[in-house]
């Protein structure tokens, strides 16, 4: 009997020592940056094998320890990348054809947001026909887009899509009159660096270089363009890590990303932070 108890104690002790060696970090990451974060984790684990990372949907629950949530524009978060948002439709869609001429910031605002309380009073012919799809999630880029145009999320026209922003692409691909907005990482195929099949960028009224770059539809050219120029038609937001800053384990991972992880941003469709912003973090 004593032997059995002794054996159980050793087994439990071993398990305890294994748990002590490998600590677990939970990551809450939107789909748009999930491939990037998976890459970062893989690279980090090469030198920090004692940390296990677990990806979970949604945001961190109250009381959850050792967790990091990737958020958009959180003032308490540590910024590590930027992302750009562009309007898109299905390729050769009726919506793109109806919109026709290039969209400037004013037209984008009119197209995506209700003009006034009596929306139906003076319906804009284009806005009336086109179906707008935007996300309801707290992590959706629809929030950044509304803020950029000084509008409220509730003032978006059209239909809401719950869940990850990748479903916005699905929605427009099924609706020839549908348009939506999404991040470069959701719009482009990260392997081919071309637009995803059946997705088209809506034409924007940018400067000559900007028009050309968008027309070419090359992800890296667009990233380079947006890292050096700002357009009122293209909102750019910050991706940040939200976590308990007093947690040394999490701090170590975040600092490693800031020091070593930015080299992977372009590969995964994100923009680098301006060097002064990076220095602040």
């Amino acid at each position: 009997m004593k032997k059995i108890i002794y054996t159980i104690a050793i087994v439990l002790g071993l398990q305890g020592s294994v748990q002590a060696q490998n600590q677990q970090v939970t990551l809450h990451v939107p789909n748009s940056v999930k491939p990037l974060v998976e890459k970062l984790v893989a690279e980090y684990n090469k030198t920090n094998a004692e940390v296990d990372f677990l990806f979970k949907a949604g945001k961190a629950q109250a009381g959850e320890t050792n967790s990091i949530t990737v958020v958009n524009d959180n003032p308490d978060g540590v910024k590590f990348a930027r992302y750009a948002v562009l309007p898109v439709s299905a390729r050769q869609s009726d919506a793109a054809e109806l919109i026709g001429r290039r969209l400037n910031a004013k037209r984008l605002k009119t197209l995506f947001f209700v003009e006034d309380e009596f929306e139906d009073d003076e319906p804009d012919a284009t806005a009336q026909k086109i179906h707008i799809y935007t996300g309801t999630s707290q992590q959706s880029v629809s929030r950044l887009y509304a803020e950029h145009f000084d509008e409220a999320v509730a003032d978006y026209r059209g239909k809401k899509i719950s869940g990850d922003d990748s479903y916005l692409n699905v929605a427009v691909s099924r609706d020839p009159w549908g348009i939506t907005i999404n991040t470069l990482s959701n719009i482009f195929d990260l392997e081919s660096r071309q637009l995803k099949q059946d997705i088209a960028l809506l034409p924007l009224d940018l400067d000559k270089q900007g028009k050309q770059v968008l027309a070419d539809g090359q992800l890296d050219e667009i990233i380079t363009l947006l890292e050096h120029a700002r357009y009122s038609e293209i909102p750019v937001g910050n991706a940040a890590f939200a976590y308990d800053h007093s947690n040394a384990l999490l701090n170590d991972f975040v600092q490693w990303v800031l020091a070593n992880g930015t080299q992977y941003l372009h590969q995964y469709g994100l923009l680098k932070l301006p060097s002064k912003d990076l220095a602040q973090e």
Partner: protein
Amino acid sequence: MSIVWVSAQTTITGRVTDARTGDPLIGATVVPTTGNELGTVADLDGNFTLKTKVQLPLTLSVQFVGYRSQEVDVYEASEPIEVQLTENLNKLSEVVVVGYGTQKRTQLTGSVATVKAEIIGQSQSATLDGALSGQVAGLHVTASSGQPGADSQIRIRGGNSVNASNEPLYVIDGFIYFKDASQGSTGVGGIEGSLNPLATINPNDIESIEVLKDVSATAIYGSRGANGVILVTTKQGKAGDKTSHINYTYNIGASRISKRLELLNASEWAQFQKDNFSNKGGYTDEQIAALGNGTDWQDAVLRTAIQQSHELSITGAGEKNRYAFSASHTNQDGIILNSGFQRYNFHTNVEWELKTNLRFGVNATYGRSRQQGLTTTESQVYNSSPFSAGITNSFVYALLMPPVIEVYKADGSFNFSNPYEYAYFAIGDHAANPVYDLRESVAENVNNYLLSNVWTSYRIGNLLLKATVGLNSEKLTQNYFSGAYTSLGLATQGIGGTGNRQTDVWQQEYTATYSKETDGVHEFDALAGFTRQTTTSTFSSIRTNHYTNESLKQYNLGDGSGIYTPQTGISESSLNSLIARVNYTFLGRYNATATFRADNSSRFSKNHRWGYFPSLGLSWNIDKEDFFDGVQNIDYLKLRVSAGLVGNQEIADYAFTTSYSTGSYGGSSSYAKKNTANDNLKWESTVSYNVGIDLGLNQNFLNFVFDAYYKKTSDLLLVVPVGFSSGVTQQLQNVGNVVNKGVELSVNANIIQRKKIQWTAGANLAINRNTISDMGATNDVIQGSDKQQILRKGEPLGAFYGLRFEGIVQTGEDVSKLPTINGQTPKPGDLKYADTDGNGRIDGNDRVILGSTQPAAVYGFSSQFNYRGFDASVTFAGSYGNKLYNALGRRLELTGDSYNVLATVKESWTPERGGNTLPLASNARPFSYIDSRYVQSASYLKLRNLTIGYRLQLPKSSPVGVRFYATGSNLFTVTRYKGYDPEVSGGTDSGVYPASRTFSAGINLTL
């Protein structure tokens, strides 16, 4: 959030909120548009859970009455869905607060008007009654005076009663709060006016005010609902809004009298004296010319009054709670010297979810208000009383001061020499000085108050159980002191007093509410409960006179050698009630509300304590009928009808029983019979009928609410004369009926509603006819210190009664055909009155009805405009057809050799000049009865409020919001009334504190 797979079933969770406020939309429906599955309903926090077997993606339609519906495609259910709905600007979309609950406006059967916080905040009024003026059809607010902190008289659909109160019932966050006039006095006397009981509530703490007008809405308050009910809901944090909202407002302003009376200046007065009287001053024409303006006593007692206020409010919510806290300080000087109002007020409203379905909340307001007013002479009618001579307070006395008298002597000290004063306010060569009176006298009300309510609720499925215990505790202190050199203290070498009244009102409420909706066909809501309210009020006061040292004033009353009999007392009352209500809606079109309340009041004799008050209301949403589908431009159309019975128990405690007042006589205690028992005393009851129509046009561009009503109050609580055998001269009895009937119309227009520009306007009109339809065996009852009012069958309450003025007897007129006055044939320069009974002499029988205090119509107009940070609002209010007895004007046109007079007296009849309004100046006492010259039109149109503001257009990332604003109050009044202001409650203007015009500016910071 999680996905739960049970037989390929997906659980979708989410939350539905108002896009603007973040409030949960309780009861929002969430229905899958694909498949045949049933939907679900959002709970108290706006959360919903939907289980579906339909494979994702699934489209949900989220709907809530009054909001634009929203479609959401659900591709995955890993996170809760956040749905924000935008309000549809439709009047019927509102959820309104009703007695003991809330109700969708579409389902209302009663007449309920709502005033929102934005409107209340714009009024800049220190009390909520001031903020209601002009906002609600059929609600007439009359300020009792211009004194800061003074109360107002509010009438909803006219007055029902004579001796019981006509004030509406207030319910503040569920606590029943009645403005009982007796609780505003400690018995110390000598103080004009009293603190507004509603001063305990800071208007900026109010989220909304609901005015319940018809019986379907008020019957749940039974014996206290006859005069209408005003429900006040204070601000609360928004559930789910985890951001703390901090709001600070600073306001500073200046007030001046809005209208001055034109009095004679020194030269004019001296000339008038020389022309008509004995020229006591012995002035020569040269001296008269040199006198010039002399002393403007009206100016001397008035000032530019500064007011300022600070307000801080914090609202927010946590996971399981929500909260609101506010602190405010108001300091408002009055336009009369040494008068003003100060208030510290703290308010909190907190709610916790202790366990699932178990909630607990506390509402509490604590504060202290202080009002410095005017001392007043006793309102007794005997010939040697200054009051009987129309001198009611030091302000009126200032108007009467001869302008040839200086305020100060050459050495800067107060001038107490007035050779013209020999009647009331002079002893030997020592006369009163009104400026000194006002500066040195004390007449203050100090109220420390706590209004608190603690509640808990527990939900079991569709059943909500709620228990509430509340306390309203007020300690009123009244201090009064007039030194030996003041008008009131002259005769007694100073007089002072102090009094305290402690009033505690406890309230308990236990209610159960069952709500059920089935398939959108039947909606059912039933309420049952018990409530109990007990009131205990104790008071004590003491007065002394004849002091050797006045430096500590009312804090050294023991120095007085003369001691009046101390007054102490207690009164207790209780009201136990059973309440029940059923609301039923069928197909969203047909609504019914049945209400019943049984009240047991200690204010009536044992056999008549129970009163039963039922009502039934029906409404029909006509626009929801199939036959209405093709009708264009009408958004909604609703017909409402209601009938029921409500009561009035607001009489003094113990009025049904014999009572005695105590005193002292010859050094021994004495008792005097005060009241004789009336075992038949019972409720005053009002049967009421209402028909209403709600109409919305052109996508809510125009909203109309029309109501017509008939109210008959029976068993009128009336003080009637009784025979001497009873030991008293009068007694409270149930005698007679009063009928109010009228129509009301409200129109609201959303003229422009765009995101950057909004313009709304509203107008309301109410026409009411008030008639005493029966007075039993009682004949006319004459009322008022000048016998100026009468209660008579066929006439309205507040009817004025007096002689009809017919001009001045002119030189050469055939006086033999004129009726005699006091047995004398009138001579040129005398007044002429109509001899209505044709008996050849003028006496009391010639008096006729000269109009009444009841307006034929009251109306209001308001508009709000916003454009890119700029805002402007304006509110007008008015009344038409009501009269006011200008007792002050009558006094100031009474000529003599002691007092100043109005400049109109220069037009008095003389043989040379003639004249047809004022008689030949003389020392003659006024005729015993008032005449039509002084019952004047009190119709008015007032610009109550004009506010313009600008909110800085800061970036959204700015942590601070800043708004500057400027407000003008009482900017102008259009009226034919000849006194200071046509708004005087009670119908007699004997020189009340005059109204002021105020300009203020402020800054509002939000974090």
